């Protein structure tokens, strides 16, 4: 390294006192950040990357947390031995931080002007007139539209992207030398992510600050960071120039991280049988009703969507938050009121459901996003998986249920000892397999998969995608795969439907959509996901 590093972390360890024991989460890590550069720490959940970043500003719950070893040199000073008063001066001054969740990091009760100027008051003693002017300048710098009109806005009036811009404005208010960005784009839509990253890079160039980027997103790191450190289970396992790491990863784990999602599989047998057909499906929510039930104001979540799913195929539904993709999935499952026609193997599902609301459920099953919320924490895994089959196939012998259960556990690659466990003892990936097993045991023809991989780490995501591909091939299953993640959609889908604000913007085969998009919105989406 040619320059003197701006931040130099040496042999840092972080440990927590937990129930009388010491729990070490970060082990002897060292890294440094040069002025004006972007350094990234990459790792999956639980790798200790956020804890390491938080210890720079001593934002951990001390004295429960402590540092058995290490120094953090910022210039000449060791931040770990610094007095609390001095650290407070640094926070939001020379070092500032932005967090993942822009909704909870802003105080909902104060206007954005008040929240930004607060930081200026703490650090630079100026007159209130100057502060107002400077606040406006900051908002313009982070490119908030109509900045002068938005000064008095409350956080709820802003979109997710705008909130993150306000957070950035607050972070750069005192011209920091180092900006720590902890998963700054994870909670945002892809198109917004690209804009925020562009903004950060622009600001870095203008202000000459260093950025420490904490992320699990390799595409993001690859495109912005000069140096990359890879963390796993509290250890720094690899470090170097980003280029070198991506071109030539040395450690097995880094290679695993870099591995792309499995390639899409070509269909073995081309069936033209349409299994699920939607004709101008429309879902409206009434926002306001009179006492007698007259709808006074309503919101259309899905607007005239027609699409069909062929047997053994996967239909990918892509869209950003609020596009109505989840609502469309719920309407297929008959779990929400809709207008229009949804037919299963040529028969109107609404009618079937009215006649017998139970029997047809064996042919269509959902798997949802949240692996924590979708399993009843009070039930054992075996009970959870068998719940459906006990409703639809009553009166089997205990032994028969047991063999069904073991068969399905094997199918989703869980060991049969899992059946006695409870959801909280399982990891995210394992839980998602349980949710899959619960659906599969009914031998459905269609699976509605609503973001089943978005809450999972990259390596786990890859395993689940592969499992889904295998199962589809084996049982000729049809999938409706709902996601915001274009890479996962590409790996699994044969046909793609792009949704925006309730409308079907574009649909076609996966090749047509990815290689030759027609609509501007589709192009935007694809571009955004490639930029990052």
């Amino acid at each position, binding site marked *: 390294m040619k320059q003197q590093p701006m931040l130099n972390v040496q042999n840092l360890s972080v440990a927590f006192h937990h129930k009388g024991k010491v729990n070490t989460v970060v082990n002897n890590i060292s890294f440094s950040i040069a002025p004006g550069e972007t350094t990234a720490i990459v790792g999956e959940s639980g790798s200790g990357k956020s804890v390491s970043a938080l210890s720079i500003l001593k934002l951990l719950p001390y004295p429960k947390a402590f540092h058995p070893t290490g120094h953090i040199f910022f210039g000449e000073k060791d931040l770990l031995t610094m007095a609390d008063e001095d650290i407070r001066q640094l926070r939001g001054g020379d070092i500032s931080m932005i967090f993942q969740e822009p909704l909870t990091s802003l105080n909902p009760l104060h206007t954005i002007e008040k929240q930004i100027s607060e930081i200026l008051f703490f650090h630079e003693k100026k007159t209130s007139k100057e502060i107002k002017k400077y606040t406006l300048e900051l908002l313009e710098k982070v490119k908030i539209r109509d900045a002068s009109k938005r000064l008095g806005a409350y956080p709820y009036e802003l979109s997710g992207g705008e909130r993150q811009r306000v957070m950035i404005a607050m972070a750069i208010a005192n011209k920091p030398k180092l900006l720590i960005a902890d998963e700054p784009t994870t909670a945002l839509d892809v198109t917004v992510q690209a804009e925020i990253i562009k903004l950060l890079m622009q600001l870095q160039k203008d202000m000459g600050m260093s950025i420490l980027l904490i992320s699990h997103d390799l595409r993001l790191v690859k495109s912005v960071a000069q140096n990359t450190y890879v963390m796993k289970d509290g250890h720094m396992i690899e470090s170097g120039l980003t280029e070198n790491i991506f071109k030539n990863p040395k450690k097995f784990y880094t290679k695993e991280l870099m591995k792309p999602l499995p390639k899409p599989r070509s269909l073995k047998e081309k069936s033209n049988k349409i299994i699920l057909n939607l004709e101008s499906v429309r879902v409206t929510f009434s926002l306001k009703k009179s006492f007698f039930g007259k709808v006074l104001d309503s919101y259309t979540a899905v607007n005239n969507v027609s699409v069909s799913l062929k047997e053994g195929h996967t239909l990918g539904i892509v869209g950003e938050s609020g596009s109505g993709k989840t609502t469309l999935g719920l309407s297929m*499952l008959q*779990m929400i009121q809709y207008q229009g026609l949804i037919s299963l193997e040529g028969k109107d599902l609404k009618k079937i459901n009215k006649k017998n*609301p*139970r*029997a047809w*459920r*064996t042919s269509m*099953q*959902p798997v*949802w996003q*949240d692996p924590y*919320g*979708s*399993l*009843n*924490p*009070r*039930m*054992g895994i075996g009970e959870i998986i068998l*719940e*459906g089959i006990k*409703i*639809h196939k009553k009166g089997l012998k205990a032994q028969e249920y047991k063999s069904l259960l073991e068969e399905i556990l094997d199918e989703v690659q869980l060991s049969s000892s899992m059946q006695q466990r*409870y959801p*909280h003892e399982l990891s995210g990936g394992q839980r998602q397999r349980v*949710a899959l097993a*619960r659906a599969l045991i*009914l031998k459905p023809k269609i699976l509605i998969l609503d973001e089943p991989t978005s809450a999972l780490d990259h390596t786990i995501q890859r395993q689940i995608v592969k499992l889904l591909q295998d199962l589809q091939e084996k049982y000729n299953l049809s999938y409706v795969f709902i996601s915001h993640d274009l890479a996962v959609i590409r790996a699994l889908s044969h046909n793609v439907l792009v949704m925006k604000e309730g409308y079907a913007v574009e649909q076609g085969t996966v090749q047509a959509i990815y290689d030759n998009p027609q609509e501007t919105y589709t192009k935007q989406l694809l571009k955004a996901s490639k930029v990052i």
Partner: protein
Amino acid sequence: MALSPLNQYRWKIFKKNKRSFLSLRFFLVLFGLSLMANFIANDKPLFVHYDDQFYFPIFKNYPETIFGGDLEITADYRDNYIKEKIEKKGWMIWPPIPYNYDTVNYNLDKPVPSSPTTDNWLGTDDQGRDVLARLIYGFRLSVLFGLTLTIIAGFLGVMIGGFQGYFGGKFDLITQRITEVWMSLPLLYMIIILTSFIKASFWWLLIILVFFKWTALVFVVRAEFLKARNLEYVKAAQALGAPRRLILWRHMLPNAMVAALTMLPFVLNGAITTLTSLDFLGFGLPPGSASLGELLSQGRNNIHAPWLGISGFVALALLMSLLTFIGEGIRDAFDSRKIRKI
């Protein structure tokens, strides 16, 4: 029945809270003892050995004539005449406190209320009845009354709150308004009015109080059910085709029960307080029954006999504190934030 791991974990958290666990044990001991009140404080001996035969006066009434008395009436073992007769041909064992809650001690050498002596450990009240015996029976009555009231009111509250939360919409809206109006009725005055034309007895009082106390849990349970409707595992059960009663019973009720259970010790506390205040005002249980409220009111009327007020206060304060500490422990044990950390 084996506890599920979740409940085992909750039990562990509860036990860790030393104050709550100690309170629970202490309360169970006191409650157990008070359930056996008839063997601890009674005006009949535990056994009588007379003429080579055993008698158990607590379980069975024997006429005086068996022990050589003259009349066909139930033997009064505290009567010196009968005592002498029995002791001549045998012996008897008395409970540690030889008074029932309504036994009047006629052998006092002081005017009532008399101060504590070796015979009456906490003195007597203004009708010459032993205070300690009345405390033990009063404790039992209060706790049993509170428990019955809490169970019935809790059951009703969970049912009504559950239906409100599950069905939502107009049913919820209308029943909610009714509940609110109902809750704002002044409980004490209503009961005073009602008891003026109903002869108050244990069961009547219970029915009237259930009438007003069922609202205690409705709001919490309703909120839990509303929340549970949108839980993913409830939706998953719907998608599996699970019938409504199964979803309600298996997936939604346990959630609501956590909230309800957390509230129960405090509802129990409130029930006991209400009973005591009614007794204190003289609108509660029929005159003569052992009640803590009546003891307190005697304490107020006889300031010169502080043992009345002090023993009533200590007993009530102890009971309330124990229940509150137990409630705190339960609340912590069911705290989902703590559960999630496992």
